């Protein structure tokens, strides 16, 4: 027990003390503390084990392809050539574009919730936004397949190619299934994450900051701008958490992105992400090398999300400390 160890009157008494301690009660404490420690250690080891397991299972592919796994642009299960570049491209492009849509919206919603909404409106609205985060990914996908994709195919893509078709981004036949659908659905899915963290970050800025600005004759918006500037690192952290989520999002994306390893500037074209490749091909992978390559893809995804999440947590934490200390 922690406090027994602390209270040692002097070294000579140390031995006698431990001997005479009543065992019946302290065994309980001893065992219980060790037991919780054991679980904590297991959580710690679990993350390491995950990395190790995937490394072991992807060794075949790592040895065979080395770095060309990341730079190769052919993903051909039949010829057993696995280069993940188009997949990595699809992952990054879909996530970054989704973020580009979701971020301004999220900040707008967060500002509304934290700064503008009266409290009777804030609570139900926050609840609705959280509900958005609670919808299962596969239900988003279902909605994507039967509602969003037809809408994009029949209205959005024809409109865009008509008006902006001279740009390479809006070029091509309107399939519906493709990058555009994935981007839209992803932006809806990451919005609640960025919103709720940004709202908390904004709320953690002391009221004095706003009052000081308002007292100087600033308008509400000018005061909000100051609060937003103070919250930069927290919002950046929230954005990165959203990015991590978008990169790893599987079901909804798999169902609407079209699933073809292709590098194309057009948003209308089908694409592929790391998560959707794994979801789509894992049970079909017949050869060891194929399976090993898919596990390597999971490993790459694991490492990327760890880095992104690690950075994001550090940013959010640093924000938290800033006001707690000050």
């Amino acid at each position, binding site marked *: 027990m922690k406090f027994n160890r602390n209270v040692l009157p002097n070294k000579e008494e140390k031995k006698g003390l431990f001997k005479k301690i009543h065992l019946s*009660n*302290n065994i*309980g404490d001893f065992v*219980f503390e060790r037991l*919780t420690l*054991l*679980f*904590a*250690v*297991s*959580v710690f080891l*679990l*993350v390491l*084990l*995950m990395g190790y*397991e995937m490394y072991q*299972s992807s060794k075949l592919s790592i040895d065979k392809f080395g770095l060309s796994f990341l730079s190769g642009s052919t993903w051909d299960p039949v010829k057993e050539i696995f280069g993940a570049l188009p997949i990595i491209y699809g992952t990054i492009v879909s996530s970054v574009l989704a973020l580009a849509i979701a971020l301004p*919206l*999220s900040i*707008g*919603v967060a*500002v*509304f919730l934290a*700064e*503008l*909404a009266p409290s009777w409106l804030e609570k139900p609205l926050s609840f*609705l*936004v959280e509900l*958005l985060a609670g*919808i*299962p*990914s*596969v*239900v988003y*996908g*279902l909605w994507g*397949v*039967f*509602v969003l994709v037809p809408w994009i195919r029949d209205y959005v893509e024809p409109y865009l190619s008509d008006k902006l078709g001279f740009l390479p981004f809006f070029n091509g036949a309107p399939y519906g299934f493709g990058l555009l659908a994935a981007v839209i659905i992803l932006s*809806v899915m990451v919005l*609640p994450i960025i919103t709720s963290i940004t709202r908390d970050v904004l709320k953690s800025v002391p009221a004095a900051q706003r009052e000081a600005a308002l007292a100087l004759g600033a*308008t509400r*918006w*000018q005061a909000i701008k100051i609060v937003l500037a103070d919250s930069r690192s927290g919002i950046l952290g929230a954005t990165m958490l959203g990015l991590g989520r978008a*990169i*790893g*999002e*599987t*079901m909804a994306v798999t*169902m609407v992105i079209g699933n073809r390893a292709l590098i194309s500037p057009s948003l209308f074209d089908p694409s592929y992400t790391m*998560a959707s490749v*794994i979801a789509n091909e*894992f049970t079909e992978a017949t050869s060891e090398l194929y399976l090993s390559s898919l*596990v390597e893809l*999971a490993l790459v995804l*694991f490492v990327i999300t760890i880095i*992104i*999440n*690690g950075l994001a*947590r550090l940013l959010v934490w640093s924000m938290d400390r800033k006001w707690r200390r000050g």
Partner: protein
Amino acid sequence: MKEKGFFYYRKKAVNYLMIFLSFAAALAAIIPLAFIFYYTVSKGAQYLNLSFFTQMPKPVGETGGGMANAIVGTLILIGIGGGIGVPVGIMTGIYLSEFGNKKFAAVVRFMADILSGVPSIVVGVVAYTLIVVPMKHFSALAGGVALAILMIPTVTRTTEEMIKLVPQSIREAGLALGIPKWKTTLMIVLRTAWKGIATGVLLGLSRAAGETAPLLFTALGNRFWSTSIGQPIASLTVYIYDYAKSPFEDWNNQAWTAALVLILLIALLSLLFKIITRSKYKTN
């Protein structure tokens, strides 16, 4: 007043414009929510009937049938996930708040945060290599373990936060009565924080119930009745995925019904927890 010149009005206009935009963003954010709910409820309800809950899926080509196996399968999967994930999460949370030495606790906390950001498909891959490969076949157990791993960070962090909210004086009161620390922690501190922890557990369970990716190649799916944890098992989410992809209209429609049932299941879960955690004592 003289000062109310151009800049004053521009400042005012920008102010109102920005407030309006912020409000518009809030509205825009809930539009997809409304859409998804509208479609899920209207399309799902159309095919919702008793046989959906009591019958097995019909073979390809036949219409009708239900998803009794998938409903039970989902419950079994979250049962396994919760059975493993909840105790691990709660014990780790207790360690972090009550015992943890500062440095190691910070490391564990960081790991839990990292774990919460790992994509669920990656967790599925790990469960595959850890359990499916050695067992040589897909199983409910592998799916349950994957769900457990996904639940652990949520339960851990909520437990820690909720236990930290219990005032120190409550712990001291227990210790001062001559109650050993482990009993004080389990029977007094944990009991005081129980409602908050239950909320975390509920959140973890309902997320687990909605997971698909980690089940695709662990629990796999099963068109037949199975409750064995050593065998592949059906789940609502995997059915939604398979049926949404299928070319049969009847299956597409059943996917909507499955989605509605899934959402109802999650809602039921939270209702159940509300009832369980409702205060035992009257309050004035």
